[in-house]
């Protein structure tokens, strides 16, 4: 089985290196094909491993080689395939494979086609390292690796100012979180003496509680960055500057879930600190609602989906925080399918609309793009959690978990958010595919995407529909690893009320959305309508003014302070002090050189002056002889 592990792990690396050979060359179609094939290999291996684990196989644990070994620190390149990682591997490789295939079409006309695949495969490799590593350091490698690839892919169109800005923002924000993660690692190391999962988790129970809390918090800070939790969330929406397949793969299905993965992976730790768990769940719930609220009014197709991702990540954290790790993981998986599908669909739309992103400028695309319409609609249903699609099973379980654990506030907010989710999802669908055609006034002639792109989306479509039936086998698989349990509401009646109530709420939202946006008189908003001038709308539209706040109160002061440090402090104070000392010395020389007037009389006088000084000093000392003791002690202090 180990060979499958290696294949799964290294096929993407090979793919990336292979593609990078051609980065400077014009487009080569075979690069895309070979890259897709290699990722497919990886996927197949992952599936094989998946079945092996699913079939009750022992976790596979390999150690490739030593990485860092110094002092008490020993970090190998170790990889483990267990229930958690194999789930992630399956999700990652599946989505990656499909996105690779899809990208062959999507990036068709891009001059940097080859480079795209190099980055994309590199991302897959990093992600695989992240999920397969058997220690925190390896996780961190992947963690940073996906950050790097995300940087490269967001800024893929580097000539766009906004893209490079977003790339840097993503990288730097992630770095802030990474610092937290690093501190978490340090804490773990100095308290347990190792960074290996098994060693660490076997010892966490021995640590005192406050240490554990700190570890939990710092690790979660790391997770917050990668999973774009408040207040580090702004990068995710901006990251939509990247090519859409990237958004599908990285910013929906895989990388952003790394934070959730970390929390799930560290479940033995978080089990010990329920306080932190509550905090995580609360933050997740907050973000779920917070992001959904921003999605309500947004006018950028990709950003809406991004906010929805954010919101769903909130759900996952809520679940993980409440100890329902398996639920979180399951939602993670389900979400990956329908969200990737949604993004790829959006990609199709963008292709058709010549990169137009404002859904208000679209409308009535269902005629032109039938399959895309179907798939996006289904994905939206799944996202909204409509029975019997994937989202229903995963999301509903989260709600159940919150309810069962008596976290009614969380439950309530999440429930409300579910309604919001349904609303914004179908607002989007309605605006894009229904109503009047508003695009023709912009001179756009949309067309359906290539067939193979649609075929690439098909498996996701498939999983988005049927993922629900995987719930039971999945539960069985991770039962032991994640200490999973079923959530059973005591009373059958309550259970049904909840189920049906939720469904009704969701469907009501969907209808409301349709009614509101499936109209023929929808125009492109121009900032004059009443709604748009409402405070509430403005706050939401400007993302609660958080980016503005960051720009005004963090970025600008940082820039100004930097300039100040350089121009005013480094040059005017520190350097000037050094130069000043030199200048004082030089000027002293310059001022006193007049002593050497060249006049013999003056020179003779100086000699006499010297003599007189000696004599005066002699006289003074002669008088002071009786105080000689004190003088002696003073001079001895000088080292005489």
């Amino acid at each position: 089985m180990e060979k499958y592990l290696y294949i799964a792990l290294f096929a993407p690396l090979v793919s990336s290196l292979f593609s990078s050979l051609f980065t400077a060359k014009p487009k080569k179609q075979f690069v895309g094909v070979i890259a897709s094939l290699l990722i497919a290999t990886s996927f197949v291996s992952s599936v094989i491993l998946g079945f092996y684990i699913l079939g009750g196989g022992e976790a596979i644990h390999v150690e490739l080689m030593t990485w860092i070994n110094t002092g008490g620190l020993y970090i190998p390149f170790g990889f483990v395939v267990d229930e958690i990682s194999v789930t992630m591997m399956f999700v990652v490789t599946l989505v990656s494979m499909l996105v690779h295939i899809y990208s062959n079409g999507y990036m068709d006309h891009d001059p940097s086609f080859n480079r795209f695949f190099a980055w994309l495969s590199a991302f897959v490799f990093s992600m695989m390292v992240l999920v397969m590593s058997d220690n925190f350091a390896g996780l961190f490698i992947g963690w940073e690796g996906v950050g790097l690839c995300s940087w490269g892919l967001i800024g893929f169109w580097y000539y766009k100012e906004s893209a490079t800005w977003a790339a840097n923002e993503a990288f730097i924000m992630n770095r802030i979180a990474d610092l937290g993660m690093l501190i978490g690692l340090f804490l773990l190391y100095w308290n347990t003496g190792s960074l290996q999962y098994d060693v660490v988790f076997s010892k966490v129970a021995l640590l005192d509680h406050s240490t554990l809390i700190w570890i939990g918090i710092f690790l979660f800070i790391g997770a917050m960055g990668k999973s774009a939790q408040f207040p580090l969330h702004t990068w995710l929406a901006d990251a939509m500057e990247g090519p859409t397949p990237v958004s599908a793969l990285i910013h929906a299905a895989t990388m952003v879930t790394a934070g959730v993965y970390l929390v799930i992976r560290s479940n033995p730790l978080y089990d010990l600190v329920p306080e932190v768990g509550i905090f995580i769940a609360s933050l997740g719930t907050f973000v779920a609602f917070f992001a959904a609220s921003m999605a309500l009014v947004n006018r950028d197709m990709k950003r809406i989906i991004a906010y929805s991702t954010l919101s769903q990540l909130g759900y996952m954290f809520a679940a993980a925080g409440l100890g329902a790790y398996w639920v979180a993981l399951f939602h993670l998986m389900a979400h990956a399918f329908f969200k990737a599908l949604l993004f790829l669909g959006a990609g199709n739309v963008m292709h058709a609309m010549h990169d137009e992103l404002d859904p208000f400028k679209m409308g009535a695309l269902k005629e032109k793009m039938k399959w895309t319409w179907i798939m996006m609609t289904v994905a939206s249903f799944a996202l909204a959690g409509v029975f019997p699609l994937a989202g229903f099973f995963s999301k509903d379980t989260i709600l159940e978990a919150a309810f069962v654990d008596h976290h009614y506030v969380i439950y309530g907010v999440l429930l409300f958010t579910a309604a919001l989710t349904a609303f914004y999802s179908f607002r989007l669908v309605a605006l894009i595919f229904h109503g009047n055609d508003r695009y023709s006034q912009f001179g756009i002639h949309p067309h359906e995407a290539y067939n193979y792109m649609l075929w690439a989306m098909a498996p996701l479509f498939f999983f988005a529909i049927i993922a629900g039936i995987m719930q039971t086998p999945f539960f069985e698989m991770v039962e032991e690893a994640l200490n999973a349990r079923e959530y059973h509401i005591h009373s059958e009646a309550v259970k049904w009320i909840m189920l049906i109530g939720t469904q009704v709420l969701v469907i009501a939202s969907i209808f409301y959305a349709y009614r509101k946006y499936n109209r023929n008189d929808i125009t492109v908003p121009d900032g004059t309508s009443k709604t748009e001038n409402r405070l509430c709308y403005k706050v939401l539209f400007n993302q609660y003014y958080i980016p503005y706040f960051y720009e005004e109160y963090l970025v600008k002061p940082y820039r100004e302070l930097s300039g100040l440090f350089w121009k005013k402090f480094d040059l005017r104070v520190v350097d000037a002090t050094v130069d000043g000392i030199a200048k004082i010395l030089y000027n002293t020389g310059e001022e006193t050189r007049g002593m050497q007037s060249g006049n013999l009389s003056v020179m003779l006088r100086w000699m006499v002056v010297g003599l007189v000084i000696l004599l005066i000093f002699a006289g003074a000392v002669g008088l002071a002889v009786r105080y000689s003791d004190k003088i002696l002690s003073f001079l001895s202090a000088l080292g005489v």
Partner: protein
Amino acid sequence: MEIGLSHYLILSTILFGIGLYGVMSRKNLLMLFFATEILLNSVNIGFAAISHYLGDLTGQMFAFFVIAIAASEVAVGLGLLVVWFKRHNRIDLDEMMSMRG
């Protein structure tokens, strides 16, 4: 009042002071050299006196050599003045300021 060694030494000092004054104030090099002679002579008085009061001849020896040195200095000094004077036609030391700083 008995004339003691101190009297001589004080006289010597006073004369030395006069010499110092001359050395510092004179601008005419020749007259400046006069002042240096005064310095040496004042010391000679001291030596002779000490020699007398200690009953020791060494002081006289020293004075003797000082006189010899004074004489040699005069020779060299005048020689220098001669070459200087030949070039510049004057012996004012305020003229000698080509090097400074």
